[in-house]
């Protein structure tokens, strides 16, 4: 193995984006993608803590089979608000709006995103949506489950559903505008010589994510709007008593919300594809396969939605088709894992914090992805659908995958964003605690699920207490 000359200078520029201007105004009216990324960083962190607080209360409540902390009603609100805060206001915007915003222009050699004002606008839209949702949380809460299944959400729930769906509807436009901004930027603002197949894999992942943002988000916006209209004005879209069909809601909902899973995981995959070659000090293995697999995931991901509905009474032929397509979408994910692993081969690997997160990501995503094969299997899904197996599976993808990728990426680019280094030893310990603690919390839930423990239960049979 050869060695690299140490020719990188350590001097920081005197003036940079953090000290170019001062004052609240200069931040709230900024059109600099780097500053907007920091605005997003603050606001998604806020929602991450809110969602985390709900999760903590859920875990404490489940200490005892009969429920330890809160009433059934409150418990239902806790898991619903945990889901809504985490999915719509943390996971979906986290990597794209923070790291993507900051890095995409830098990576492709552009001065900023294509539409800097729209970039700022999407942050304000996010805030307005967030305010509606916080209003819902604080004036009665929300107890429909983050899935808002009708007719529970549109007719029977007594909680503050209307402001919540309005908030998520509004927030959708933030995603759409961010996606649009990224697509236009990548198409039109690449520096000379930055051809498509020289793009960093982080950019490829965000390009794929942006396609989903633009094509999928309008559908969830419309769907939740219809549910809201049914609730407010008794229009019969989904309520069978008014001639509607509750299953229609699920089709529309999952048409976005399954691709939304890829919104959360694809950018994290992009982060991992940058971290691994950096800390292995060699080029990524199979660049074009990783790039193409991002696009494949985004495209095929639009055709698997009804695998959430195998037991709604949908036609068996539909179920067979969606099961097969769900297996198909697993292949590009597998390709990525194989390529990341191969990148380590004959590398010069160091164990810095971002690398620990990246390796943790591979381990957890591996389990999350493989257990997806169980759920895509029609015969097994009959038994494990709507159990803790599902809860464990998607937390492995969303926390084990998306959050590990996000936190790993934050560490990786922290010096670039702030000009300062985090304390390495502490950061490594944190990464290891996160990995171990996550597994201790969620792995037993696979077993619980196979034993038949249904999800969203405020109390549970006493025989499950140890695993719970």
């Amino acid at each position: 193995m050869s060695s690299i000359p140490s020719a990188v200078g350590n001097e920081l520029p005197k003036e940079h984006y953090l000290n170019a201007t001062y004052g609240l105004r200069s931040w709230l009216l900024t059109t600099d993608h780097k500053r907007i990324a920091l605005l997003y960083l603050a606001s998604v962190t806020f929602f991450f803590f809110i969602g985390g607080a709900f999760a903590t209360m859920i875990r404490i409540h489940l200490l005892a089979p009969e429920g330890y902390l809160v009433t059934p009603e409150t418990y239902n609100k806790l898991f619903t608000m945990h889901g809504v805060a985490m999915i719509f206001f943390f996971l979906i915007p986290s990597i794209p709006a923070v790291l993507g915003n900051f890095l995409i222009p830098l990576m492709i050699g552009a001065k900023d995103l294509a539409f800097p004002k729209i970039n700022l606008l999407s942050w304000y839209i996010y805030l307005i949506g967030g305010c509606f949702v916080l209003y819902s949380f604080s004036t009665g809460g929300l107890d429909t489950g983050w899935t808002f299944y009708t007719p529970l959400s549109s007719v029977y729930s007594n909680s503050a559903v209307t402001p919540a769906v309005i908030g998520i509807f509004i927030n959708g436009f933030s995603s759409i505008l961010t996606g649009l901004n990224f697509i236009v930027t990548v198409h039109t603002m690449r520096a000379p010589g930055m051809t498509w197949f020289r793009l960093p894999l982080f950019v490829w992942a965000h390009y794929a994510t942006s396609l989903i943002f633009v094509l999928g988000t309008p559908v969830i916006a419309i769907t939740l709007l219809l549910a809201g209209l049914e609730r407010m004005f008794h229009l019969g879209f989904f309520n069978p008593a008014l001639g509607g069909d509750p299953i229609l809601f699920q089709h529309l909902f999952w048409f976005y919300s399954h691709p939304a899973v890829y919104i959360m995981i694809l950018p994290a995959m992009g982060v991992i594809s940058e971290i691994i070659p950096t800390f292995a000090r060699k080029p990524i293995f199979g660049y074009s396969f990783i790039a193409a697999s991002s696009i494949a995931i985004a495209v095929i991901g639009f055709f698997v939605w009804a695998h959430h509905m195998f037991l709604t009474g949908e036609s068996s032929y539909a179920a067979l088709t969606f099961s097969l397509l769900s297996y198909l979408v697993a292949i590009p994910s597998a390709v990525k894992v194989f390529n990341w692993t191969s990148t380590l081969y004959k590398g010069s690997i160091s164990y810095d914090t971002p690398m620990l997160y990246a390796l943790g990501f591979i381990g957890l995503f591996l389990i999350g992805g493989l257990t997806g094969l169980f759920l895509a299997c029609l015969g097994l899904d009959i038994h494990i659908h709507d159990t803790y197996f599902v809860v464990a599976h998607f937390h492995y993808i969303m926390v084990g995958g998306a959050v590990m990728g996000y936190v790993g990426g934050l560490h990786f680019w922290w010096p670039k964003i702030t000009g300062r280094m985090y304390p390495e030893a502490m950061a490594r310990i944190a990464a290891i605690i996160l990995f171990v603690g996550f597994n201790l919390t969620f792995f037993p839930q696979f077993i619980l699920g196979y034993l038949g423990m249904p999800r969203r239960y405020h109390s549970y049979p006493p025989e499950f207490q140890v695993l719970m």
Partner: protein
Amino acid sequence: MQSQIPLYPEQASNIAPNVDALMAYITAVCLFFAVAITAAIVLFFFKYHRKKSGEIGVPIHGDSRLEALWLVVPAVLALTMFAGGAVIYVQFRRPPPDTLDIYVIGKQWMWKLQQPNGLKEINELHVPAGLDVKLIMASEDVIHDFAVPAFRTKMDVVPGHYNTLWFRPTKTGRYRFFCSQYCGTNHAIMGGWVTVMEPPEYAAWLTGSSTNATDPVVSGEKLFAERTCSTCHYPDGKGRGPSLNGLYGKKVVLSDGSTVTADEAYIRESILNPNAKIVAKYQALMPSFQGQLSEEQLLNLISYVKSLQTQSVSEAGSGFAAAGKK
């Protein structure tokens, strides 16, 4: 410390052993990949650990044969998993022809179950071992889900639809059932117990507990007269509506030339939304009964219509004469 935690629930139905076998197969395949990849990462982690600060890795850009290999092998394995799951699912969705039919109504937050002879149970279900049982399920309000882990079965109970769930219990005992689709405040306590009994015991239990059971066919017949269904649906087909004798399970030709099998869902729809499917040679005259009948009354009416299948001479008082021999 001895662990008391089992890895799978009891196997108490015909499909349970198949589901568990498939689970074992997929677990084995996934475990192989998980262990292989983890081992590779750990091995590379230590073997290629950076020894000197200036060191760089060997620039390998990829290998298309390897890429082809790990595209094809997972795809083939995935197909086997798909096929295994498909076989079980298709069997699970197609009830055998002769089943013991039990009506299930889910409502916030309880289950009402009705045995074929009209005996009603709440959050308890008694079934005979070794016989094919079919649950015909309706919801009064939101979506519920009837799940029996020991049988490895579950099915959503959707308002406005009839979903069916069939199984053949194979082992006597008491097993939990759950509501598995989140349905509001007391979702977690909307469950109960399935008791699987030997057929003679079941028969004895059924007659012993049924002193005040009303036969759903009798209730349905009463409703049929009360709601004036009988003024149009003559048994000989000469009324304003088609005859219902021998209707259940038959193919019905509709006015647009298509055919539909007269199952529970069709009969239900014809009561609630009569104009959705008009029988050939008849006119769209029937009023809708949407909102006027409870799910239970609907099931009673359906039971009555189903009974017209075998019963060529109906009991007195219904206005039906012996006609339409099958």
